[in-house]
């Protein structure tokens, strides 16, 4: 073999080559890159100055913060108020209880996310977890002091609304989705009407309905407290949206599965529980997680009916005369908290979708052939 030294091919690798291919591949691209770099140069350094370099990180009184207003962010606000933002007006000595409750709820989410635990036993696990959370929050047994639920608040209440909301809305949504596909006209009519009604109105009107109209529906003297009313409204709201997702999953199962179950002589409920639902739920998990992300964000709306969730406690902390005027820092902090939760769930859902796609592909192709 001759050892002819050939010149390196054009489009060289290395930093310069990457720059040419990705940032400056053509005239319009080059101009766009320069424009974007200019915008970043104008906006990023002042923001970093404001948020990190000139910021006031801890101060017991707001004088230092006010002196720095306009040039530095006041993160001391968050440091001062973080207990209130996390736990609301829960008694100070008992803060370990809501903290433990938050950990239990996060553990529930984490366990449900691992595919090893996708079995019917997961429902029992959820039941146990929710009972533990209820006992921790209310107290009154095992020597724990009783804390009425008007004092619950902050991040803990947001997680509580989302977790209990999901736990109750999910079985309800399965019933609604099955009802919508049923052959009985009354059942189907009711389910369709319910789903379309709830999906067509804003969540605010449901929250108003729950907080204002529900007391009118009950006999005089019977009261439901505000948290329960809001929770019921959120459950009804989530059930309608989740029902549509489950319905999509039910439609995604090849008809051959239904027919095979019928051929085996299974009754409707046995067929649904043993053959249809496991497959339908498996398909619909990524859109379910996406709906849950939306639902988690929607819990922030309870500020409008006066419940003390994360957003409300931040808003209320701002109303203290000493700390007014720091709204921007406060809402950036709120955005950060929500972003951490929602982004984690959304990355998980994307990863899950990729995994399930890869797994189901051989089967899906066969299914498509058979049902042509």
């Amino acid at each position: 073999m001759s050892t002819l030294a050939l010149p390196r091919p054009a489009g060289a690798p290395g930093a310069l080559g990457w720059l040419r291919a990705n940032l400056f591949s053509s005239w319009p691209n080059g101009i766009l890159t320069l424009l974007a770099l200019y915008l970043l140069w104008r906006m990023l350094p002042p923001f970093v100055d404001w948020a990190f370099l000139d910021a006031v990180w801890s101060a017991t009184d707001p004088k230092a913060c006010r002196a720095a207003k306009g040039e530095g962010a006041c993160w001391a606000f968050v440091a001062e108020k973080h207990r209130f933002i996390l736990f609301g007006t829960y008694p100070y000595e008992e803060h370990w209880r809501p903290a433990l409750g938050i950990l239990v709820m996060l553990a529930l989410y984490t366990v449900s996310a691992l595919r090893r635990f996708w079995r019917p036993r997961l429902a029992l696990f959820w039941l146990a977890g929710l009972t533990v959370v209820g006992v921790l929050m209310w107290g009154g047994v095992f020597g724990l002091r009783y804390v009425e639920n008007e004092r619950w608040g902050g991040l803990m209440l947001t997680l509580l609304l989302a977790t209990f909301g999901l736990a109750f809305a999910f079985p309800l949504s399965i019933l609604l989705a099955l009802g919508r596909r049923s052959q009985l006209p009354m059942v189907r009519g009711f389910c369709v009407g319910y789903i379309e009604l709830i999906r067509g109105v804003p969540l605010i009107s449901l929250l108003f309905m729950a907080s204002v109209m529900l007391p009118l529906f009950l006999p005089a003297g019977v009261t439901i407290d505000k948290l329960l009313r809001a929770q019921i409204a959120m459950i009804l709201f989530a059930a309608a949206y989740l029902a549509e997702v489950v319905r999509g999953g039910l439609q995604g199962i090849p008809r051959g599965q239904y027919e095979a179950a019928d051929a085996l002589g299974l009754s409707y409920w046995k067929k649904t529980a043993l053959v249809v639902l496991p497959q339908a739920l498996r398909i619909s998990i990524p859109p379910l997680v996406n709906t849950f992300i939306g639902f988690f964000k929607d819990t922030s709306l309870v500020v409008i009916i006066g419940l003390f969730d994360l957003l409300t406690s931040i808003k209320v902390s701002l109303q203290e005369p000493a700390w007014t005027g720091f709204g921007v820092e406060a809402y950036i902090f709120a955005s950060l908290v929500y972003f951490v939760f929602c982004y984690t769930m959304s990355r998980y859902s994307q990863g899950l979708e990729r995994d399930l796609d890869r797994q189901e592909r051989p089967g899906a192709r066969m299914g498509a052939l058979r049902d042509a």
Partner: protein
Amino acid sequence: MLAAGLVLWFFVSNTARNLETLRVASGFGFLAREAGFEIGETTFIAFSAADSYLRAFCVGLANTFRVALIGVAVATLLGTLIGLGRLSSNWLVAKLAAVYVEVMRNVPLLVQLFFWYAIISENLPGPREAVSPFPGVFLSNRGFAVPVPVAHAAYWWMLGALALGIAGAIGFTAWARARQAATGAQLPSGWIGLAMILGAPLALFLAFGAPLALDKPELSGFNFAGGAALTPEFAALLAGLSIYTAAFIAEIVRAGVLAVDKGQFEAADSLGLPRRRAMRLVILPQALRVIVPPLTSQYLNLTKNSSLAVAIGYPDLVSIANTTMNQTGQAIEGIAIIMAVYLTISLSISAFMNWYNQRIALRGAAR
């Protein structure tokens, strides 16, 4: 069924008894009563405290439509740009667009609304030191003041001519297409249609002597007089809604463009179609088929989300209904009105989408 009937009767009798105890009349008669509260901003409908509740609801509805329509336009424009930016081959632009989408989608809308309202009301200077990015436009913590053209009869004529021009262009395009199908002869219907749409209003504009007087806002006393004023609430609501919905629209547009098979581009190339005609005749119809259904559902979401205006004080339908319910105690009727309005909007958008889907559905066996 018997059980359901009993439960319903239980609730209804309780409600009647409770309403009687509270001495609140049922029915919609309260709508004729005098409202007794002022509304901060109105759209096309003047309102004073002596007008009826019904008029107040109409003002609320007009306000909702105003923010929803402008929000939809801005969000679509912004969302399309960002969606296409995310598909760009420029690494920097693609990454920036991705960061925008991820951040805006994962923060609740209410937090974003509060954030924008805080920036406008806390961090903008007072009217005397208002920021002026363009001549005639002033940003202050009392709102945004922009110049507007002075009202002139010519503008109404131009609007009428525009409507006629659009109808004429649609008719002409349909006729030209039928003629091409029958005889094969082509006409540049795009350019002719554009000439119709723009030409008639332009001709009228010139005929009226080109009236172009601007009403510029000027500082007088503590605030700006003249021009149009956008209140901080409206500006914050519009900014929050558009920026939030644009992130979702960006993802929809990206999914639509990615859904078109690469083979389609190659097939159009092999047929000899130039790039722009390939986009218009082959790629865009297929991409729109995937884009339009979720897009209309995002428009619906934007309209429903505009109900969050009650949290920052913009007088939309829900906010006015809330005030009315607090004043009169007619909770059931108020909530029924809110739900009926939004249900009508959402059902009409769904009906439109069903009609559109049937029109463009792929006939025959799916692939």
